[in-house]
């Protein structure tokens, strides 16, 4: 038997759904409800795929958060990448970034103009490009949350140790815990608890959420991506909410350690420092970004190629910002499914396979 079947056991799903319903009744008796935000795009996809919203009682609302790294990357970042490509620099990137609209056009457009935009499955693909093209400059688009940051920093480490001189990074790394704080302090947003990302937590560890929970008294439950992981995580969240408790609970102990991945953390601390960074549709969140330390400026594309990253402009009709903050569900955007579809995306939330708009389009229409 595949061990994953153990996390898809239908009898346990029925039992958990019944327990969730009982906790929701408790909430109803107290005259409250619970809005739970899933922060991670892969959770968003899993929740849509397994139709988890359909089994939840009405007192429990699940909203999607800003957990799609491509979606929260500013239009101005894409503009800078396009500008670099037009200067004859080879852009190396994860595939999802190619179709994300900047202020004007996408990297796919510049590729059609004949400039070099290469898709890498692993950041180490950028090393291969640098070695294969010694007379060209390569810029790797270094975006992502902690899960992606760790592999990309390994690329920096490798390039420095092997004296690869024609490779630099356009860095826009983002960190999850400061974003949680920005969301709960936004008066326009209601979030009672977070279903915390599985693999970001594998890097930062359970401990990374404790200061947040102590400061804001909001439950944080780390869950895996299987249906029982998510149901059990929601059960734990409702148990806490109904009792007015708030704690960090790790329901994904088969992967997430209390201290996280210490090797990755050490590497990140060596090369990166905390900065304020802008999130598309949300704005600047203090201390929510990681940038290369000044001593590694040679590997920082903004220094090496003297380019500035502005915040850029997005299509005024696109409501990605409200979607990323959990203020609206994708179908509430007037462009959803009409002017904006995965084949013809207006905003990043429809481009990325883990964007909320793409998840709703694929699984939850009609």
């Amino acid at each position, binding site marked *: 038997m595949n061990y994953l079947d*153990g996390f898809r056991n239908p009898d*346990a799903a029925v039992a*958990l759904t019944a327990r969730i319903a009982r906790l929701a009744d408790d909430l109803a008796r107290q005259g409250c409800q619970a809005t739970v935000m899933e922060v991670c795009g892969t959770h968003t996809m899993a929740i849509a795929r397994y139709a988890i919203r359909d089994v939840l009682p009405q007192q429990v609302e699940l909203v999607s958060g800003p957990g799609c790294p491509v979606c929260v990357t500013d239009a101005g970042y894409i503009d800078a990448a396009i500008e670099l490509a037009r200067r004859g620099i080879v852009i190396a990137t994860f595939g999802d970034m190619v179709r994300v609209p900047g202020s004007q056009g996408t990297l796919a457009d510049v590729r059609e103009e004949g400039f070099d935009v290469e898709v890498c499955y692993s950041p180490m693909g950028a090393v291969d490009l640098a070695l294969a093209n010694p007379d060209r400059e390569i810029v790797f688009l270094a975006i992502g949350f902690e899960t992606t940051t760790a*592999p990309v920093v390994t690329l920096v480490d490798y390039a420095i140790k092997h004296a690869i001189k024609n490779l630099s990074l356009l860095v826009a790394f983002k960190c999850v815990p400061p974003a949680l704080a920005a969301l709960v302090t936004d008066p326009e947003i209601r979030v009672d608890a977070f279903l915390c990302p599985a*693999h970001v937590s594998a890097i930062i560890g359970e401990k990374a959420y404790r200061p947040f929970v102590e400061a804001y008294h909001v439950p944080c439950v780390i869950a895996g991506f299987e249906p029982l992981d998510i149901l059990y995580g929601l059960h734990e969240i409702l148990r806490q909410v109904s009792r007015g408790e708030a704690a960090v609970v790790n329901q994904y102990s088969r992967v997430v350690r209390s201290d996280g991945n210490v090797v*990755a953390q050490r590497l990140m601390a060596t090369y990166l420092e905390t900065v304020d960074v802008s999130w598309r549709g949300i704005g600047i969140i203090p201390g929510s970004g990681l940038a290369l330390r000044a001593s590694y400026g040679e590997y920082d594309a903004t220094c090496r190629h003297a380019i500035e990253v502005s915040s850029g402009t997005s299509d005024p009709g696109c409501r990605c910002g409200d979607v990323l903050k959990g203020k609206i569900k994708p179908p509430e955007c007037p462009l959803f499914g009409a002017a904006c579809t995965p084949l013809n995306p207006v905003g990043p939330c429809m481009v990325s396979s883990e964007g909320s708009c793409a998840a709703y389009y694929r699984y939850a229409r009609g």
Partner: protein
Amino acid sequence: MCLAIPMKLSELRDGGQGVVAMEGATYDVNLSLIENPRVGDYLIVHAGFAIEKLDRAEADERIQMFEELGAVNEE
């Protein structure tokens, strides 16, 4: 995008590299972010890197708990 399913390490190679297998297909994986990788380990792989190992004992304990939960429900 996170790969939700762990992959089994089938081969160790030089330079901190390895090969993982899933559903008959194999992929190269960089092992530099995890400690003591061993053939047979189940790994969480992201962007071509193993970022953590699956702890089988923790997984089995949780599966057992779900089985008990489901069984109680049927009575």
